[in-house]
């Protein structure tokens, strides 16, 4: 079945577009909207959005691939997004990533077989002051170390997505 934009989406999109002087400025908010609906932005969705906004498909694809916050495939229940930029890198992000790879048995971009975890290395999360940082779904976990990471994983395995002691 070909992908079609839902009526709910179109209604919301009209509101979003009204906030900007140019239609193409609404591209990122609308991609976020699509991702909220489905959990990811499919190739067909990019096509449909390009037509909807009157933009070339390549432009939409370029924006989706530029930002690590857009998923191009469905993610697991918990999307572990470890910042890989300078501050986090220097504060130990590579160690965290290696630990996650080892404990989950997956590489960046992969999802565990039980569908619980997806591991990603992402670009700057804007929390350099509390590096290293990992975002799980929409929640930030800051000043992480191996111990906190293990505790967090344990929590998540039991379905508890909650802040840990700072």
């Amino acid at each position: 079945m070909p992908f079609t934009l839902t009526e709910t989406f179109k209604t919301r999109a009209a509101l979003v577009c009204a906030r900007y002087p140019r239609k193409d400025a609404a591209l990122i908010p609308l991609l976020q909207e699509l991702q909220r609906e489905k959990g990811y932005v499919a190739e067909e969705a990019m096509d449909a959005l390009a037509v909807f906004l009157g933009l070339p498909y390549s432009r939409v694809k370029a924006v989706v691939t530029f930002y690590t916050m857009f998923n191009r495939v469905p993610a697991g229940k918990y999307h572990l997004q470890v910042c890989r930029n300078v501050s986090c890198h220097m504060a130990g992000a590579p160690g965290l990533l290696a630990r996650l790879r080892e404990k989950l048995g997956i590489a960046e971009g992969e999802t565990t077989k039980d569908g619980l975890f997806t591991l990603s290395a992402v670009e700057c999360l804007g929390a350099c002051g509390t590096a290293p940082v990992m975002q799980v779904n929409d929640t930030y976990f800051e000043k992480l170390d191996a111990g906190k990471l293990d505790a967090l994983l344990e929590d998540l395995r039991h379905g508890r997505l909650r802040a840990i002691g700072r």
Partner: protein
Amino acid sequence: MPKLTIDGKTLEVAKGTTVLEAAQQLGVHVPRYCYHPKLSVSGNCRMCLVEVEKSPKLLTACSTEAAEGMVVHTATEKVKAARRDVLEYLLLNHPLDCPVCDQAGECGLQDYYMEHSRAKSRFPAEDKVRRQKRRPLGPHLVLDNERCILCTRCVRFCAEVTKTAELEVMERGDRSFIDLKEGRALDNGYSLNIADVCPVGAWTSRDFRFKQRVWFLKKTPTVCLGCATGCLTEVHHNEGAIYRVMPRPNAETNTWLCDAGRMVYKAVQAGDRLAKGVIKNGLIELEPALRETASRIDENHAAAAVLGSPWLSVEDNAALARLAKDALKTENFSFDFNAEQGIKDGILINKDPAPNAAGARRVKAACGGLSFGELAAKVASGAVKVLVTEARAAALLKNELKAGGARLIVFAANRSEIPQGAYATLPYANYFETPGTFVNFQGLERRTVPAVAAPEGVRPLWAMVNRLAVYSGTSLHLDSAEAALKGIL
């Protein structure tokens, strides 16, 4: 009108002029990759960094507007160091492909490396980012993402010139690469310009790849005869063979060149190129073919007609006019072509596929003759028994020839051009092989310059006409192209 000083020389430039353009006016070349005079400014390659007094940092000359009192230095130690560093950065992930890269010899990276860097890479080859190599994208191009320096000239060309916007930079950081929609071909009618604007070996022409090293090529400036636009071109050839046709940017007509125009040269060295005459589908030597043709014309001397051709040069049309007036002594000739002209696609391709309708009309203005309609009516009615013309022009009278049954004698360069039912065909040298004058849709007179020699025995059309007249017992004294032009241009 801001006045600024560049490397000690002061000049005044129009408002809005960039520092790079101002430097160019002084003859100072600021190195650049992403800047292109006909594309929007991107400022991403950083190669054009220059020092501007009172500015704490170096500025990109391509995106800095010249301002009153600005003092610019393009060759200080600071600038030189910046160029070296930018080159080191651009070459970080660049593969060591030069020996097998088709761009070698006309590569921006090679040229600027020799001029501005000559530094040894500090980056181990095994750490380089690997990318997709030699991906054919569309009928004309191959993309090598590894060689790309992400200047985005190709992206901007597709977005701004053809407005098809196929290309974009995907991903980010050192993972960035140029790509288009999966499964889509890059075929917008102007795609080969992308190989031209690409400053490195990322985009190469499938037609030209590996045929010839560029330093062996000789360059002949000439004119494209693909349509009535008449773009200025440059033919690149070596040892009698043409390898590619490139645009010769000019203010009047063209910066670019369409894909179709670039492929016109293929006919010159095609397998069906005519070097002999053809009588009723049978190849025969040129002299007997001329004799046979002349006697067929003589048979119907009183009912012969000549039609010029918008595909022929003014010289060759003039020779045909002389044949009609002085050898056949007939009034049945026409050089009247009025196809609608104008740019069809907003870029370069003309509504009129023939290059010289305006040139043919100049022959008409000098020699008179019938209107195209009048001649067509005579052919259709059967009043014309034998018609001499050029192969593609004969197609304009296809139905009339069928109705009137006139014997058709054509000049053709390639066998595939010969219209069905032609009685005799005579070969001629085409305009990659012989000079000719063409008048484009703007009324600009342009001359083709021969790049290669015609096949043995094949002569320009005016010389063939001269021979034909001799066989009919008349001397037209057409000893040169200039002789044919007498009284016309």
